[in-house]
């Protein structure tokens, strides 16, 4: 059956099917993104931390904006070419659109990757060091274990995957092969033994009741039932013994201590363990390793210092705190002086600007919020600043990391430091875990990125398989491209708002 109104318009609405369809769809899309933009407003107004400014790569976002705008022009040109029956031009413009979409997505990939690699370390006093993990370093706990007390109750054997060498487990009876099947068998055996024990208990209870009944028919009946339980219990226990002869030794135990030969080298993310000390490491399944803690620290190549939260939390004295005493300077003492000086200059500049403005507009308060840019500094900028205004001064900053106790050398003014877990309040990549800004950033740009991908797939379909429809009815292909184009423009329109909101404001 021929579907009506795919090309020509209905007389009452003046529209063909897909046209009204795409507008209804776009209406729902407006509501979808509207809800997320609304969330953005709530999150920003309710943020209990300084809303991040300038943390995204503006040049990359700018380039992506340009690319999307150009692709919007190209998709209109592709449609116009079809309307003018220039199929060759249509192919050219549509290819350009797809190319733009690909470039956009690749750029987005670079941007996301940079965020995943960037780490933030909030110290106990809420001063922040940001940067990258040193090459080859991980934030995992390293532990050398001589003994392990394995807990069998929940069959969790995840700890095995964090042992890096071929350490083997020995009980008093000899080696025990620690593998998944072993844990499963042990659990199975334990479950059967438990059932046998339960039946035995029931038998004993019934026997007791029979005793109290003191003869008679009911006592007889009870004894008979007890006997049956006893029989079943023994049968089960025998089966455990027969089916799992190798596990017999541990029957009934819920945990067992093993010696590890050679000593196990364990490297495990913090999230896998519940407790750790100098000589003990406890996994989430209650398995405990005894030995020596080798390291529990983050090795970070620092590129940024942020004291905004250090100053804004009133429970710690807030703005009255002494910048020079921030915990970060224990790790990067070489930049302390420059940071404090720059901060004071920044503050003075802001105050003078503010008072000048307020003198001019008598009675009004300065509209700009207390810009805290001087509490957050990229080391590159700090060094550039120092190099510019203090030429001829004693050599400062770069390379200073070498004589800072414990801190290794740096490169390009980025010192490498080792921050022990004890000193860390919070560790995160620049991902939704870091704060609500990154949560909404990834939600909005991720959803938008999926729209770019989806749009590009549909338009690619029109590009690759359009020829036969064009031969049959060029107007029909033009209509399809128009509808695909409407979606594409909508995706561009959303980005027009996303760029300033997330990157610039």
């Amino acid at each position, binding site marked *: 059956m021929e579907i009506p109104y795919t090309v020509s318009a209905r007389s009452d*609405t*003046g*529209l063909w099917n897909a*046209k*009204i369809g795409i*507008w*209804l769809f776009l*209406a729902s899309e*407006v*509501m979808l993104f*509207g*809800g997320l*933009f*609304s969330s953005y*407003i*709530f999150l920003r*107004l*309710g943020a209990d931390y300084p809303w991040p*400014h300038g943390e995204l790569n*503006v040049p990359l976002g*700018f380039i992506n*904006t*340009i690319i999307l*705008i*150009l692709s*919007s*022009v190209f998709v*209109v*040109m592709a449609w*116009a070419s079809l*309307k*003018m*029956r220039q199929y060759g031009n249509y192919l050219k413009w549509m290819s350009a659109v797809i190319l733009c979409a690909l470039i956009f997505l690749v750029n987005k990939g670079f941007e996301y990757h940079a965020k995943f690699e960037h780490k933030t370390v909030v110290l106990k006093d809420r001063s922040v060091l940001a940067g990258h993990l040193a090459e080859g370093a991980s934030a995992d706990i390293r532990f050398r274990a001589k003994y392990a007390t394995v807990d069998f109750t929940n069959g969790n054997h995840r700890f095995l995957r964090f042992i890096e060498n071929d350490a083997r487990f020995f009980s008093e009876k000899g080696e025990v092969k620690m593998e998944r099947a072993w844990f499963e068998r042990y659990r199975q055996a334990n479950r059967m033994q438990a059932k046998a024990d339960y039946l035995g208990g029931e038998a004993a209870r019934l026997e007791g009741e029979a005793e109290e009944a003191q003869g008679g028919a009911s006592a007889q009946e009870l004894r008979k039932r007890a006997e049956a339980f006893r029989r079943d219990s023994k049968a089960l226990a025998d089966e455990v013994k027969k089916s799992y002869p190798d596990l017999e030794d541990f029957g009934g135990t819920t945990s067992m201590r093993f010696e590890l030969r050679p000593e196990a080298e364990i490297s495990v993310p913090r999230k896998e363990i519940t407790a750790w000390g100098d000589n003990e490491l406890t996994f989430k399944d209650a398995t405990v390793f005894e030995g020596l803690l080798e390291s529990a620290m983050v090795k970070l190549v620092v590129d940024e210092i942020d004291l905004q939260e250090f100053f804004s939390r009133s429970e710690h004295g807030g703005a009255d705190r002494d910048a020079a005493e921030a915990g970060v300077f224990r790790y990067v003492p070489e930049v302390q002086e420059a940071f404090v000086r720059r901060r004071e200059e920044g503050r003075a500049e802001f105050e003078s600007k503010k008072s000048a403005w307020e003198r001019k507009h008598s009675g009004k308060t300065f509209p*700009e*919020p207390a*810009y805290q840019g001087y509490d957050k500094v990229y080391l590159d900028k700090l060094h550039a600043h120092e190099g510019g205004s203090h030429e001829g001064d004693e050599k400062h900053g770069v390379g200073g990391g070498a004589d800072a106790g414990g801190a290794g050398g740096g490169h390009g003014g980025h010192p490498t430091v080792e921050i022990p877990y004890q000193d860390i309040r919070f560790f995160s990549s620049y991902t939704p875990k870091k704060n609500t800004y990154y949560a909404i950033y990834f939600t909005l740009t991720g959803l938008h990125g999926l729209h770019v991908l989806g749009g590009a797939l549909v338009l690619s379909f029109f590009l690759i398989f359009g020829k036969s429809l064009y031969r049959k009815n060029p107007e029909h292909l033009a209509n399809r491209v128009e509808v695909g*184009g*409407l979606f594409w*423009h*909508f995706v*561009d*329109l959303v980005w*027009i*708002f996303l*760029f*300033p*909101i997330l990157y*610039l*404001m």
Partner: protein
Amino acid sequence: MAETPEEIRKHIRLYWGVGITLLVFTVITVVVAKITPSITIGLLIATFKAGLVALIFMHLNSEKPMIYKILFFTAIFAAGLLWLFIWSLKDPIMR
């Protein structure tokens, strides 16, 4: 809406003109953001750009009434969503 090839040929200049305007205003957005942290100005520019895309690229400057009816309700509900936060700021006692 432009339907005949001749009309479309005439519109092509307009499409490029809009494209260039959008590019120029993208530059302006970035420059303005460097000068002032004003959210209002940034949003005004973005709204202007979005308006151009909707009116010219999406042909909303000359659509059929049915589309406008659909979008009228969309606009009302979307505006409602974006104004929800006003209630979160309202405190009738402490003001």
